[in-house]
């Protein structure tokens, strides 16, 4: 397990940091692809991120030119085309900022800062990677699937959503996967949640990567801890991010051990599930509540 920054307060500023690859600039919108209700994927001209981004890393996108909404929003790098110099982000509309992004027009310029954070461990060779996505959590998986596929990993895809229309189109993963789906209304696949399908898949896989709302990740972590305690599980978590680069100290998240808070934008957004203090995370008010 790689070390987590949880130094005595701020992340250790003198330690080598991933920020060396991050750049800030304006990216032109090249394509706008609707992907299900309230979701679009934006293809952005952004050669720096396209070249440097690793699976599970994120970018901070500006959502307005003026002061409302003020702060950038974090989005996982969904897909990259280093040759074309483009990056795809998957935007699910939840509030004012994502509404503006989803309404972007071809040719618009969007401020992009990235790549940021630390992502998923990419499988180092054959073996099975189980990717678990709930809600809007599919975003980081096309890039992870491509990297895993390139290294010869077998990919299993487990996607849960409220209803069929909100499942992530499996062909958009861009790599061959064995797909399992669950919907809460039973409109496709198994009726229920990803955690209902998960137990049956645990035996077949060598590591798990999960992304979705924090409570879903907690459920996945509980399932894995109970049924396959040694299995490496990495989760991509959410926290409100003021800066994305470790200076605002806003994205602190409870981790096990003292001093018990890590900055998600530097230590994460992907953390080993065993490092997260799920108990304290669960007692906190949700990071976002409109």
């Amino acid at each position, binding site marked *: 397990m790689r070390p987590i920054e949880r130094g005595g307060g701020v992340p250790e500023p003198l330690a080598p940091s991933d920020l060396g690859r991050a750049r800030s600039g304006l990216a032109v919108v090249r394509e706008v692809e609707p992907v299900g209700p309230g979701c679009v994927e934006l293809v952005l001209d952004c050669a720096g991120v396209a070249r440097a981004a690793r699976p599970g890393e994120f970018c901070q996108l500006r959502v307005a030119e003026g002061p409302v909404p003020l702060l950038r929003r974090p989005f996982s790098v969904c897909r990259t085309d280093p040759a074309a110099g483009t990056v795809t982000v998957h935007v699910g509309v939840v509030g004012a900022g994502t509404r503006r992004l989803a309404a972007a027009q071809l040719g618009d310029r969007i401020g992009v800062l990235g790549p940021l954070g630390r992502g998923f461990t990419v499988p180092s060779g054959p073996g099975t990677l189980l990717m678990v996505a709930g809600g809007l959590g599919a975003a980081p998986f096309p890039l992870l699937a491509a990297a895993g596929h390139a290294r010869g990993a077998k990919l299993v895809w487990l996607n849960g959503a409220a209803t069929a229309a909100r499942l992530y189109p499996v062909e958009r993963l861009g790599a061959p996967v064995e797909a399992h789906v669950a919907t809460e209304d039973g409109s496709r696949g198994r009726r229920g949640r990803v955690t209902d399908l998960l137990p049956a898949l645990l035996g077949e896989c060598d590591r798990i990567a999960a992304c979705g709302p924090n409570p879903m990740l907690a459920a996945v972590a509980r399932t894995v801890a109970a049924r396959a305690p040694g299995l490496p599980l990495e989760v991509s978590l959410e926290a409100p991010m003021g800066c994305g680069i470790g200076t605002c100290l806003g994205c602190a998240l409870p981790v096990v051990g003292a001093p018990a808070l890590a900055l998600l934008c530097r230590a994460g957004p992907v953390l080993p599930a065993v490092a997260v203090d799920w108990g304290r995370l669960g007692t906190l*008010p949700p990071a976002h509540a409109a």
Partner: protein
Amino acid sequence: MVTPAPAGRAGPTLSVAIGRGLVLPNPIGVASGTFGYGFELGALCPVERLGAIFTKGTTLRPRPGNPPPRVAETTAGMLNAIGLQNPGVEVVRERYAPSWRSWPVPVIVNVAGADLEEYARVAGRLDGVPGIGGIELNISCPNVAGGLDFGLDPAQAASCVARVRAATTLPLIVKLSPGAADIAEVARAVADAGADAVSAINTVVGMKVSLALRRPVLAGSGTGGLSGPAIKPVALAAVARVRAAVAIPVIGIGGIADAADALEFFVAGADAVQVGTQTFVEPDAALRVLDGCRAYAGEAGLARLTDLRWSPGGPASGRGPGGG
């Protein structure tokens, strides 16, 4: 307060003398709590061109900070309740300051404490440490120990400053709180107590409420510090009033997002400014502000940015109306 322009040289003089030998190469700094300890941003905002770096608020011992959520966005602003997460003064002395020695930009350590004793001890530990350009005293930090907010009361602010002044020979900038009933009075008190300069303003107390959760968004009491464009008018009024009250340099802070905003602070009476929240939006915001100010000064033929200063007539030196 400003070094005179050397005769025959083109362009405005940008350096600002703060006092006790501290000279900022230019008047655009980055605000405490928005630039870490100067190491984080790296290539995103090369520190060499900054006028000053004001570090995260530093206490005697390391502090883990408040439980999350700690930040929340508001209309044209943001709230934070970080709770002074910091590595403690020893780490600053021993690990960070040595790196700062070779930087061309003065690094000014923002100091916080729960009581007078802690303020004085932190200031004492920083005294004489090479690489540390000065102290910015955050007398209005969150009531971390259920104690007093020294920044709200002139007498208490003065006693805090006097105590710190005795503990260090470093240049001392006192950061004022907009929460004081009369910020000008606090400014006068801290100037008399030995401050070399004042900076204004710190964040304004605010709250965001989640209707869905039926509770405040931030953890704990639910209040936090409001920053960003929403508070710019509050900051400009504070700077104008403090400017009229004291003769020492005034460093303006609050909602500066571009060069025009910064220039407004010079009109209101600032000698230098700090860029805070906008660095979260644009990592190199302070450098854009600097470039814009320099260009404006050049076009307007200003010898120095403080030439923009407005001098109010008689009535304006009093406490101005608050509306109605």
